[in-house]
């Protein structure tokens, strides 16, 4: 299950680190300071990247949920769990940076704006995913339940957004249907940050999937050794 060949992870991490260095350079030295908000606006590049990567995770989780229910192949369950966990990490970062940005700009840590509300509810839904995961023992059953949870959570997103948008929004809209609303150097900085975060996402997802696969392998080997069901060293996900 785990290839014994040369581990490409150091190479991937080095590439990601280089991308991040480029992103930091682009954000702080290439992109100009914003006229109204000033320097704080530089939070934006990583904030939006985190948000998009989080959304990518949850999309992956939903797709692998559907794939699991259709194929009943546990590898989709592993992928889904890995994606949700990474998505949760990035959603936390989005909420944290959003609050730290909102305080100086809107003068409030939190407002019930559509995007903020959606991120928060998403966070709750996918945190609940792990509570559910911990509550079911049987592998197949857990996979099916978690798949449903991931799909339901993803399906909920547009409704949450729609319902929250009926309130007034103060969140800036950067990407509209008719094009992007910012200066070219800023766009470069954003794109480089996005690339960096996408690479990081890939590294993390790969690592998380490997960890889950290893835990699975350990379970199988322990079973083969015919030891007592190891409560003490039950693989933690």
């Amino acid at each position, binding site marked *: 299950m785990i290839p014994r060949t040369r581990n490409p992870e150091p190479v991937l991490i080095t590439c990601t680190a280089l991308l991040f260095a480029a992103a930091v350079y682009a954000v702080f030295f290439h992109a100009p300071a914003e006229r109204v908000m000033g320097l704080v606006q530089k939070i934006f590049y990583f904030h939006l990247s985190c948000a998009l990567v989080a959304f990518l995770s949850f999309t992956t989780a939903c797709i692998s949920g559907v794939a699991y*229910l259709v194929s009943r192949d546990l590898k989709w369950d592993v992928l889904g769990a890995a994606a949700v966990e990474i998505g949760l990490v990035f959603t936390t970062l989005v909420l944290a940076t959003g609050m730290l940005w909102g305080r100086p700009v809107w003068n409030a840590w939190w407002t019930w704006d559509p995007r903020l509300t959606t991120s928060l*509810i998403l966070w*709750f*839904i996918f*945190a*609940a995913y792990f*509570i*559910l995961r*911990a*509550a*079911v*023992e*049987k592998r*197949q*059953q857990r996979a*099916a*339940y978690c*798949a*449903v*949870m991931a*799909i*339901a*959570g993803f*399906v*909920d997103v547009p*409704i*949450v957004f*729609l*319902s*929250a948008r*009926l309130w007034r929004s103060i969140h800036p809209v950067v990407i509209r249907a008719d094009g992007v609303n910012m200066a070219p150097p800023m766009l470069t900085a954003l794109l480089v940050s996005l690339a960096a975060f996408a690479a990081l996402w890939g590294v993390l997802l790969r690592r998380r999937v490997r960890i889950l696969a290893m835990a699975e392998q350990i379970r199988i080997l322990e079973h083969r050794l015919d030891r007592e069901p190891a409560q003490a060293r039950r693989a933690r996900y």
Partner: protein
Amino acid sequence: MRSAWLVIRKDLRAELRRPQAMIAMLFFGFLLLVILDVAVPAGTEITPETGAGILWVAITFSSVLGLGRSFDREKENHCLEGLLLSPLSPEGLFGAKMAVNCIFMGLAELAILPLFFILYGDAFLRSLPALALVLLLANSGFAATGTLFAAITAGADRNEALLPMLFFPLVMPLIAMAVRATGMIFAGAPLPEYSSWLQVMAAFTLIFTGLGFLVSRHIFRD
């Protein structure tokens, strides 16, 4: 279709004989209304929006008690397997349970509402017909999501308080919309002002009913 109807009849009759779910829902709903009344400082005027919030807190929390019990009877007697061996399809079972939950919630609300009007003022009474519409939409949305996750928690190994934790995050938009619409109704707004809320609520209900039917085969199989 006929066997789904039989499940509905069976559940209603069992509830009539030993009204476990109804008593839990009503008692909890009443308690919440009283607690919230105590929590609001005496002499505070209850605005329409506050009233709506209080009403929906009571309804949401009492309904989760009823939803949590929707598969209890089958689990106790191990007859979920029997039900699934019968000609009843998983989709039929989901639909039947959803209908039962809808009915229970409606009945509980019939009792919770009068107490709400007693405690928080009968000025809200004139908005009853419009309120019924919101309740109907919210009940079916709650029932769709709740039945789906009640089935999941019934199959989980450690399921204390699992249902609220899975259920509340998902229905949060529904609760928010119901509160907003009810607040407007209590304030005497005409239908066009809150109809967009009702539309989104209907969309929520439709989506989750559809999802429930689609995945019920996978949920009940394990």
